[in-house]
């Protein structure tokens, strides 16, 4: 639970920094989405069965939905995309990636 609260604050600050500060810094005309980058990283590096990555996906997507200014997008679009991304990463890691274990 403590981890989730820390994650919530971290993602909130990250989305504010992205929408406020980094809105002035396009990279070749594009704006990197730090929330998605963070969600992907946390899901790759945690154990596939852990739930923190799923929480990060939901919270990150939810904050993106709140702070993105788009009239034609369904509210919840980013949350669903983010959750779908998390599920895909977890599925690939579980099914196709086998991390080396210690030999006895």
């Amino acid at each position, binding site marked *: 639970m403590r981890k989730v609260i820390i994650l919530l604050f971290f993602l*909130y600050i990250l989305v*504010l*920094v992205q*929408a*406020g*500060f*980094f*809105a*002035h*810094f*396009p990279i070749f*005309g*594009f*704006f990197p989405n730090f929330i998605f980058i963070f969600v992907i990283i946390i899901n790759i590096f945690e154990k*596939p*069965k852990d739930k923190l990555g799923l929480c990060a996906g*939901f919270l990150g997507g939810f904050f993106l*939905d*709140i*702070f*993105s*200014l*788009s*009239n*034609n997008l*369904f*509210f*919840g679009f980013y*949350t*669903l995309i983010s*959750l779908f991304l998390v*599920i895909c990463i977890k599925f690939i890691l*579980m*099914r196709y990636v*086998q991390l080396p274990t210690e030999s006895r």
Partner: protein
Amino acid sequence: MRSYMNPAKRDGIKKRTQFSLHSKLKLGVIFLGILAFFVILNITNFSKPIKNFFYLISSPVEQMLFRKGSGASNFFEGIFRSGKLMEENKNLRFENQELLSRISALNEAEKENETLRDVLNLGMKNDFELLFAQIVSKDIARDSLLIDKGLKDEIKKGFPVITGQKVLLGRIGEVYDNFSEVILVSNKESSFDAKISKLDVKEVEDINIFSTLRSTRVKEVYGVVKGGGGLKIYLDLIPREDKILKDDIITTAALGGIFPQGLLVGRVKDIKISDLDPFQKAEITPAFSLQDLDKIFIIKNFKLVAGQ
């Protein structure tokens, strides 16, 4: 085929690699629950108060970050563009001189206009009812801004938004209690009538500027300004017989009734003529710069044609 793997280890891998029916069902139910939650939020429009609440609690921090970002961006831009600045400075000086000479001519015309107005008893009235607003954040990827005025300030959807220099920025999109979204003219949803006003070139020659302004006929070329996304704007549906040039100035027209007449939109950057298309198309350089933008004005009430 014989397997050499330890059965316990093999079972472990099997467990890891296969979703059980129970976990699949659980995941599906959670996903459907979230989907239903968002569908309800969208149908009931409850997403608006949620967004407004988050904007309200975050706006002080977001505004601070926005200003810092703007400062940092200007600083880095200065470093990276130092090579071009000399040339730009030279061009701007030249343009400044040209504009000064035009201003002096326009001042004379303005004096004359005032006299004429007095004679005709028209009077000079304020054309707009303006409301000052501050930008909270930008979403350039979607050509939108968030400003600190909302329903509580009697802001309504569709109100035009301009800069202090009467440059058109866009119109109000979604309105929350304390905040509003501004759909920039470069947004793909944006479309309105505009015109290019220019003096007849033949008449300008060999006459001094003052007498030209009184005697020349202003030729107007109409078209439709459409947002292209990514801060790009196009002037479309220009009849092929109308001649437009690079750097021609585009202003809003009263035709559509969306914006008041005479707001500056931008300059013609590039003209595209296709043999297959009955109309010309031009790319426009927007007159506003989002980098330097901080304070803006919302037009709450306007007359389509100034002075009416």
